[in-house]
């Protein structure tokens, strides 16, 4: 498995597409922070929050995360790299797990600009606001804007960022079975984007139905795991990470069941 991971990381390092994706998330993170900075100052209209949200982490990762799955999993079917891994004696389970690990690393890497830029913005002590449409790093930015952080709060901030990244990776993990089964990047991106819109709607149902909320909290899409702030306690982090890891394991098991005996053209 180490060889497969190293090979994928080598390819990731050489990939122009991945560099472009990192460039896009860096630019989007900057735009998100600048708009959240300008809106409370009145430099741009408050009605621009919708556009500001467009550059937020939750929106960008819904598209770009699936693009990564398209490039690095579906693309490997096109280039027959996955075929080569199997013909040289790697099990299908190993292929799935190694792909999932590298996919998770790639998602985490394209989220890093959001973490870094949000951290820098919060350190500036300025006010940030994007109205009511704030999730993930944008929510962290708007909720904690103006806070003077103590040393322990800086560590807590880092823990929130790490947890957010894990939750995002878990949310995107359903791209893995989609990519292994569909093998078409366009379908993976379209289905996941549609699915992310659906889960946003389900959040509304969860808010009005305690029963559904409890069920939905068992997935990384519910439970307000993307609304962590400095008020969160250890239990919130543990629950978010545990639910995310359990969800990833479940999704990988589903992927294995689907891919275990599938024919490779």
């Amino acid at each position: 498995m180490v060889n497969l991971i190293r090979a994928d990381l080598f390819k990731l390092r050489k990939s122009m597409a991945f560099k472009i994706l990192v460039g896009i998330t860096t630019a989007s993170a900057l735009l998100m922070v600048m708009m959240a900075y300008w809106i409370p100052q009145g430099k741009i209209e408050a009605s621009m929050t919708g556009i500001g949200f467009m550059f937020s982490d939750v929106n960008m990762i819904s598209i770009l995360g699936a693009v990564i799955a398209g490039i690095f999993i579906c693309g490997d079917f096109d280039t027959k790299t996955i075929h080569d891994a199997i013909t040289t004696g790697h099990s299908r389970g190993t292929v799935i797990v190694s792909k999932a690990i590298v996919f998770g690393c790639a998602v985490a890497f394209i989220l890093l600009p959001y973490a870094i830029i949000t951290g820098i913005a919060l350190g500036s002590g300025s006010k940030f606001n994007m109205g009511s449409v704030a999730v993930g790093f944008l929510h962290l930015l708007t909720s904690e804007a103006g806070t003077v952080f103590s040393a322990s709060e800086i560590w807590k901030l880092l823990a929130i960022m790490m947890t957010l990244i894990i939750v995002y990776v878990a949310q995107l993990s359903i791209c893995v079975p989609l990519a292994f089964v569909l093998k078409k990047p366009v379908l993976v991106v379209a289905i996941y984007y549609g699915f992310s819109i659906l889960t946003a709607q389900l959040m509304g149902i969860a808010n009005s139905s305690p029963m559904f909320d409890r069920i939905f909290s068992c997935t990384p899409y519910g439970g307000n795991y993307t609304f962590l702030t400095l008020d969160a306690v250890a239990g919130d982090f543990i629950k978010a990470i545990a639910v995310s890891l359990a969800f990833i394991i479940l999704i990988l098991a589903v992927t294995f069941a689907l891919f275990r005996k599938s024919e490779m053209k």
Partner: protein
Amino acid sequence: MKQYVLKTNSLTKSYNGAYALRDLSIALEPGKIYGLIGQNGAGKSTLMRMVAGLAFPTAGSIELFGQSGEKDLQAERKRLGCMIEYPSITPNLSAKDNLTLHRILRGIPSETIENELLTLVGLSDTGKKKAKNFSLGMKQRLGIAIALLGDPELLILDEPINGLDPLGVVEIRNLLIKLCEERHMTILISSHNLPELYQVATDYLIIHQGKLMQSITLAELEESCKHHFLINCDQPEKLVSVLEVQLDTINYKVMPDKTVKLYDYLGEQEFVAKTLYENGIAVSNFSIQGDTLEDYFISVIGGGLNG
């Protein structure tokens, strides 16, 4: 007991009731080059894909290096090198980076192997040119180089000379022969270019409609294809005596069915016929026989064998 690199036992593959392979039993010995011959859809690629683990048999079994069972097969596949249908190439990487990617994937530590293989397949001067800009022939060469990573004991090549120029065909042919002779590598190669296959393979497997029609060595094939007089008579012993005494030749063969194959005097049909007649041989059949590999293949899949 004979050791086989690859053995299939009644291997069957069907898709929705349509058979791609049917009860195929073959055995590949070490250090030989096997030419897999068959029409489009005969089951050549299906066989290769099942050996490589890309498809699963409907019935029957596969043994690789004496091992069977999914776990053991998986372990033995580390000794394979494959290029099936089209090469495993990442278009945005150079030839060397493609080899590095697959070298890492196979866990091969040597970092000089890329240059050695690029030289071996004639791609050493491609530099940073991306594989997407390669010609079909260059991609085939790169695919063969990737398949050769890790010095495989069984090399499976599906149409490896597709798109190669005539010089490239000769180079790849010589490379495969060299690999077989020097490294005792077993090679299973499919090609529609039968004259080319004839110059490379030491053994032939003819598949038609998913069934193995014939497994034949090069010597047997040459024997079958070699031009000769085929003579039938009721006195084969006397015929042999006439050939040796009157025609002064021992270049003949008596077949199990008592027919005689004469390989001399091919341009002198009338002289041979006259000699036999004058020596009292009552000939019931006297004809020139012999095939090319294409003729032979057609005769096999058509149901009748010459020679």
